[in-house]
């Protein structure tokens, strides 16, 4: 069984989103996603300052098995990216919700899209 922290929001495409107290958000991929991908070998993160639409591909995670696009759960501007992933992509395998984060975003104004709760995402992850 994969780990699905209750305090995060999730996208159907297996990203997680953490609301930070300062109004920004942190984004990564779920434990279920890293487990399905297998050992990660390369991670391509976006440029800081890039503007993303909700659902836009912003990163590529490549494992021993396959390459996958990662989609932004919300619209916003990239504030920071996890530069450690360039030399240590395995951080995503080891700590998908911690040291394996992908980017921090300043969400765009307006209503955020509906994301899944942990319980809702658990059902998605169950289906594969």
């Amino acid at each position, binding site marked *: 069984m994969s780990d699905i922290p209750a305090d995060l929001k999730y996208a159907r495409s297996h990203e997680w989103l953490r609301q930070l107290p300062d109004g920004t958000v942190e984004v990564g991929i779920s434990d279920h996603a890293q487990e399905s991908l297998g050992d990660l070998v390369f991670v391509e993160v976006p440029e800081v300052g890039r503007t993303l639409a909700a659902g836009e591909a912003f990163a590529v995670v490549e494992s021993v098995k*396959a390459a996958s696009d990662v989609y932004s759960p919300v619209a916003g501007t990239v504030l920071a990216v996890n530069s450690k992933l360039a030399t240590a992509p395995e951080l995503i395998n080891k700590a998908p919700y911690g040291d394996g984060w992908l980017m921090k975003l300043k969400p765009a104004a307006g209503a955020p899209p509906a994301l899944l709760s942990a319980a809702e995402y658990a059902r998605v992850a169950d289906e594969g």
Partner: protein
Amino acid sequence: MVDFGGWDMPLNYGSQIEEHHAVRRTAGVFDVSHMCVADTSGARSEEFLRQLLANDVARLTDAGQALYSCMLNPAGGILDDLIVYRRHAGQFRLVVNAGTRDKDLAWMRTAAGPFDVQISERSDLAMLAVQGPQARAQLAALLPAAAADAALALPGFCGTQQGEWFIARTGYTGEDGFEVMLPNGAAVELWRQLNARGVRSCGLGARDTLRLEAGMNLYGSDMTESTHPLESGLGWTIAWDPPQRQFTGRAALEPIRRSGSPRRLVGLVLDERAVMRSHQAVAVPGVGAGEITSGSFSPTMGRSIALARVPAATGATVTVDVRGKPLPARVVKPPFVRHGRVLVPLENQQQGQGAAVHE
């Protein structure tokens, strides 16, 4: 778990990369019981195999010696690749791929008929491959003294029958080690004993990256019935001498041998941070086009490597279409890695030794 030739097999037991490193650095064990083991019986077994196989079993002068060979159709296409061992009393053991089991057994039995040779599948045997620099010592420590001595005395590509166990110094990883064929009922206990000694369980994923680094072909990917050995990096496995030995496929291959194969299988190294995968298109500027037949990430080299079938005139570099991006790859001669050592240049020599390609 994945379906592999009708067998449920684990891709990994945790981390594919750690399993890969264990085999390069210490020792790992693979359950390769899916491989099909078949024994010949009949007075004319050698004569039969000298017609069936592109390599020549007459080269096996002593019991226990092994040979790698292709089994070809009359057009020279590769039906399968296999290992054949000479056993006692003029009999042989063949180990063929799981995915081609039914086809192989039917083909061999039809071909064996005129020689009055029988082919018996040994589904009573399991097979464990113990591989890595410490593999031989690790297995030997679990054997009775006489069997351990016999196993440790084996030269490369030779096997020994020890009671119900057949122990061979062969493998598919580019490391030293043994492949052990033993009664099904004894396999789990041996696996646990090896684990208890620190030999790591390894899955299909590590098996694939290890064999690719070792420059070993995978049947169904790097070669099929529509490709022949001369365009699959396997010319060295064809025994052309003696010229009068009419093995199946010879007549079709002779003209290609004389004129030179228009395509060849090469190794590729990608210095960019991306991974080459099978079926990606390869462009050879001014020459033509080719295709990746196997591509992956090399854990030992920290970058992507591949086997590709390209025009014979391909030079030192090609361009691979990796997810829509044309990336330059260097052409090298496999193997990439053997016995823990990288055998191909890690940096692009044209850029000079000091040019760092990683970021």
